[in-house]
């Protein structure tokens, strides 16, 4: 008895199909939501930006302390690269609508315990960072001594940065951020080698400390 409705029914089936297809397409192309506030992507961007900030500061400091030409070049390189990379990290946070710093303790995204009271008292929040006394020592030194202090601090700083980049790469990251984490890891690894050689030249002793 529903024969006259059969035509309409075909149209309806067609529409349902179109609906399903559109829905599927939508699911496929929908832009990914910004990473959550407690995600690895956001945690790494925040902490690495802060970590880079100290590297830039130490590099600019040593440039004013009459370093050797080799250390001056290296410091200029580090200051330039890390300032731009810090801008990339902060730019992503802004694009995601996330603040440059969060409520969670640093390194929480890495599963690391929050910094202890002693470290916080020394001004250290992340692996490899220099404390206030070490920074003051760098500011007071000059020439060969500035070279040595800078190299020791920056080698340790880089090792901390490599550790953070490694941890970030184990988690889900947007493609651009993953690319940066990879380059941070390999570039800083190469610079640690360079700095260890420069340090050995100046102290007569091999090693990183």
């Amino acid at each position, binding site marked *: 008895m529903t024969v006259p409705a059969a035509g309409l029914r075909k149209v309806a089936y067609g529409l349902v199909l179109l609906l399903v297809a*559109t829905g599927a397409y939508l699911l496929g192309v929908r832009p990914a939501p910004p990473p959550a506030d407690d995600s690895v992507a956001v945690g790494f961007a925040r902490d690495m930006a802060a970590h880079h900030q100290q590297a830039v500061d130490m590099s600019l400091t040593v440039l004013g302390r009459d370093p050797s030409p080799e250390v001056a*070049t290296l410091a*200029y390189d580090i200051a330039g690269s890390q300032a*731009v990379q810090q*801008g*990339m990290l902060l730019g992503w946070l802004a694009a995601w609508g996330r603040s440059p710093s969060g409520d969670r303790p640093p390194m929480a995204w890495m599963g690391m315990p929050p910094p202890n009271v002693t470290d916080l008292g020394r001004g250290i929040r992340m692996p490899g960072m220099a404390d206030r006394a070490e920074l003051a020592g760098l500011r007071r030194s000059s020439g060969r001594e500035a070279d040595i202090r800078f190299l020791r601090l920056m080698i340790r700083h880089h090792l901390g940065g490599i550790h953070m980049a490694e941890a970030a790469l184990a988690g889900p990251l947007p493609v651009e951020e993953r*690319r940066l984490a990879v380059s941070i890891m390999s570039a800083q690894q190469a610079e640690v080698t*360079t700095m260890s050689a420069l340090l050995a030249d100046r102290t007569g002793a091999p090693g990183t400390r």
Partner: protein
Amino acid sequence: MPSENSVEPRPDDRDVRVARLRDAELDHGRRRRRWRLVLIGLGVAVVALLALAAVASGPASTGRKTGDASQADPAKANVAGETVYRDLKSDHVTADVSYPADPNPPVGGPHDPVWQNADGVVYDVPLRTEHAVHSLEHGAVWLTYRPGLSAADVARLGAKVTGIPYRMMSPRPGQPAPIIVTAWGHQLRLTSATDARLDEFLRAYTQGPQAPEPGGPVTGGRATP
């Protein structure tokens, strides 16, 4: 209604049948109307979803597609005819480096701790390769030409470099093509200064994602060849 004439002589039966037919007719109409409502609803839903799809696909796809020159995929060739090189070393050495004969100029490898300034500089004499390679590591594109190129072509190329950060240009005697553009891990050889692929290459790799040290400076290094 043909059925009324063709059937049933008995009057009481006939009334019942007519009533039944009328019910069926009514029922049928209701069903028709219901289908129409369903169709309208579906139609509206489809239009709304299509509109949403159009909105969603717009910005999402422009930013993400790798074919877009501003989003070159460093692992692939992004310009027709370019060659991609992988696994390049990047250690700092102060001694001269013996780069392989091909590619020339080199697209990466060990380099001097001091980079060549590449903030839109046009050099008129050849560069020390060890410094130039360091600039590539920082995201610079190096445009080289074989001496003998016409002054007009040199000027045309220079206009694409002058004043644009992370680009530099220099002559390079003995290179295997009249014009070559090089970025870290990427190289394109050209025979004409008006080849449109030159602009594509410059756009894709000037401060591009191929740089192993993104953001590395191209100022404050070696200012002279």
